[in-house]
């Protein structure tokens, strides 16, 4: 698998870039919360929108932790299809989060990024984990 020499670091860098982008948003959530609220809002609405964004970000971090765990445990590190899917999805998600940060998108846009960029590779990762660890097969 000559392509693994490129796929493994590419996937790792895509995962890390996505993590860095999510942590950056987590650190300064205020412009995005304000973007999803109307011009006049009550403090409870702000708290609700803030919690919604926090939940979305927390889910992303958990799914990323799942993928990084599977990657470093060796379950999916040398699996080219998963590497390709994961690198593409997380690279695209990082790009989208770059727009999210600079253009100050609201919380609604974040759920789309989460779905396409985090849930899909995490689902395949979970499938691989179940197959390799549960059914004791070497590869899918």
């Amino acid at each position: 698998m000559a392509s693994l020499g490129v796929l493994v670091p590419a996937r790792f860098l895509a995962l890390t870039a996505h993590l860095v982008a999510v942590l950056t948003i987590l650190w300064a959530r205020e412009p995005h919360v304000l973007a999803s609220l109307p011009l006049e809002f009550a403090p409870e609405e702000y708290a609700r929108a803030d919690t919604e964004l926090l939940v979305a970000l927390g889910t992303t971090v958990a799914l990323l932790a799942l993928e990084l765990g599977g990657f470093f445990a060796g379950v999916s590190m040398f699996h080219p299809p998963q590497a390709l899917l994961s690198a593409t999805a997380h690279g695209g998600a990082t790009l989208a989060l770059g727009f999210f940060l600079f253009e100050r998108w609201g919380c609604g846009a974040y759920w789309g990024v989460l779905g396409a960029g985090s849930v899909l590779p995490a689902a395949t990762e979970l499938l691989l984990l179940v197959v390799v660890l549960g059914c004791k097969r070497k590869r899918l």
Partner: protein
Amino acid sequence: MAPRSRQLSSAPLQILLFLNGWYCATYFLLEAFIFVYKVLLLPYPSANLALDVLLLFLYLGVEATRIFFGSKGNLCQRKVLLSISLALTLPAATMAAYYLLLQTYALRLEAILSAILLVFYAAELLLGILTLVSFSSRDSY
């Protein structure tokens, strides 16, 4: 391939060093662009800028040496090379902490990137010490 009892090289350490090399390459590229961004946007006294850029290049040298020595020491089961690499982890961690906390203008992005580097160093230090102990437990060449 050597039978497992004679092969003491640590595969996790090797993987960490490999990924650390790629991460450091990205880190230095990104830092170079971030410095251009900071110089254009923020009032940077030239002495501080010279210090920060010089430290960045010094950091690059230390990192390249550390990763190369660690990789070769681990693969060839040489204690001296691996201990040089472990010793270089400390100045590297100091520089990562400098870019995280002490530099003139520390952006959020730089803080997160340097924190990830520190996590790498902690894992490599731990694994490196364990590998060194396993090398010392039997005669190596």
